[in-house]
């Protein structure tokens, strides 16, 4: 089954159609407000299994990154998001569940026998891709924070996944921390060349290399 959530078949229910329309509409609105220009540098959109890892500066990051993927890739891509944030109110849970099909991770109670990385790998199976923000939280400084180790374990347990660095520029000015009304400035999403974990590469080196890959895209 190449397209996990295709609605073309007879299984498409009214609810799924609804979600499909919301997805398209939301992606269009997100592109309009964020004025995002999308650049693919040494990388092309593909439906192969990938982990897009990006710097995190705004609540809009996951939405805009997800919107900037072509529709057929977007269908297969699930953002990883914080459970505590996306379960508040009624809009966010609706979006997370029905629109993005987000993978919500509990930041407060991490269980040993069900680590977030295992949950992610279980959720993507052999079709989906992921969007992760390895800084772990939104960053207000201009410098990218140190990456958390999740990306390393993802790469170690599934060496076949393509790790695609993504740099998100200026979105923190569109919707800074603590604000709820966006200012429609222009942002830029840059996808870089895929990378993999080298054989025997130490964790710290790998995370440093991944962080460097995102940072370099700023100048690309």
């Amino acid at each position, binding site marked *: 089954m190449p397209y996990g959530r295709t609605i073309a078949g007879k299984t498409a229910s009214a609810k799924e159609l609804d979600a499909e329309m919301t997805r398209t509409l939301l992606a269009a609105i997100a592109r309009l407000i964020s*004025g995002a*220009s999308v650049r693919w540098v040494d990388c092309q959109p593909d439906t192969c299994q990938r982990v897009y890892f990006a710097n995190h500066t705004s609540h809009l990051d996951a939405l805009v990154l997800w919107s900037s993927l072509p529709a057929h890739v977007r269908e297969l891509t699930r953002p990883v998001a914080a459970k505590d944030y996306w379960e508040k109110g009624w809009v966010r849970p609706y979006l997370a569940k029905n629109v993005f099909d987000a993978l919500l991770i509990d930041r407060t109670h991490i269980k040993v026998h069900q680590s977030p990385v295992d949950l992610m790998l279980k959720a993507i199976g052999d079709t989906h891709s992921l969007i992760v923000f390895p800084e772990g939280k939104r960053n*207000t400084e201009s410098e990218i924070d140190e990456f958390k180790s999740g990306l390393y374990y993802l790469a170690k347990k599934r060496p076949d996944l393509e790790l695609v660095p993504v740099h998100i520029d*200026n979105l923190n*000015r569109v919707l*800074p*921390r603590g*604000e709820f*009304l*966006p*200012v*429609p*400035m*222009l942002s830029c999403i840059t996808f870089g060349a895929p990378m993999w974990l080298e054989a025997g590469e130490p964790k710290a080196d790998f995370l440093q290399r991944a962080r460097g890959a995102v940072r370099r895209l700023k100048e690309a």
Partner: protein
Amino acid sequence: MNLMDLTTVGLVGGVLALLGAATGIGQLLKQQADTGLNPAVIEQFNLRIRAWWILCAVLAVAFLLGQTATVWLFGLLSFWALREFITLTPTRMADHRALFWVFSLFTPLQYVFVGRNLYELFSVLIPVYAFLFIPARIAFAGDYKRYLERCAKIQSGLMICVYCLSYAPALLFLKLPPPPPAAAAAAPVVEAVAPESVAPGPEAAVAPPQDLPPNARLLFFFLLVVTLGDAFQYLSEKTLGKHIIAPAISPNRTWEGYLGGVGCATLFGTVMWWATPFKPWEAALMSLVITTMGFAGGMTMSAIKRDRGVKDYGTLVEGHGGVLDRIDSMCFAAPVFYHLTRFIFPQ
């Protein structure tokens, strides 16, 4: 259907002919390898021509749909230009709320006032009220770092991209004198072509056609002279350019470019006097002012870009840099042209 009168047909035909000729020349230059011209320059020229076709098509649609559509079009242009301006202008997190009101209140309100021809309001909204609001809102946000600089940047963006540009669609609402006898004499010719179309009344010969916005020709004249000023200046710079005005600001802008651009466009504008409400000498003066202001606008925006360390403001229309790169001369020329016209024809 008698959509347009002869003058308008002449104008539109003229523009189409010009663009067609430019496209032809561009393609011809592209075919011939041994012209001795830089292929990059030819490519750039062709890209510009293509973008002008797009701009012309958009403008034509707006003109045909009427005044409201034209005001909307310029409103959207302002919005996009301001977006580019603010994006490349460093502001701080504390400016977020002020910026929100700049985009969501002042920009639309300016165009609402223009669309309702409320001169007393649209001429002061941004220079007075936004000017007072922005620093106050930023002060309340409590961040004083580079305070004056941030206020000035936001205010400049709003003035150039929104306030100044909004004077272009405001031209559509100026009260102009009735068309001169020459235009009235042209009307019977139209009737002779299509005698069965309308029952000829006594006013039909005098009244301007209502299919186009009444002042559309004035706006058209303005846009044409601005655009031609840019084009002639580009050509003169490429062919004659020697004495650079300010190398630190822009290595491309030369005195020869300025004189060539202003000279040619003024000549053209003067020859076009019959399509405007102006006398020939007035049309010449107007063209001179428009192109000079346009050149000043280009210089100013170059200085801002240089300060920000960028070449273009964005990448919306292929080959034309950003929206702001295209409308910079328009922004500077529009208010001056509007006020001069208002001075010649007191309201």
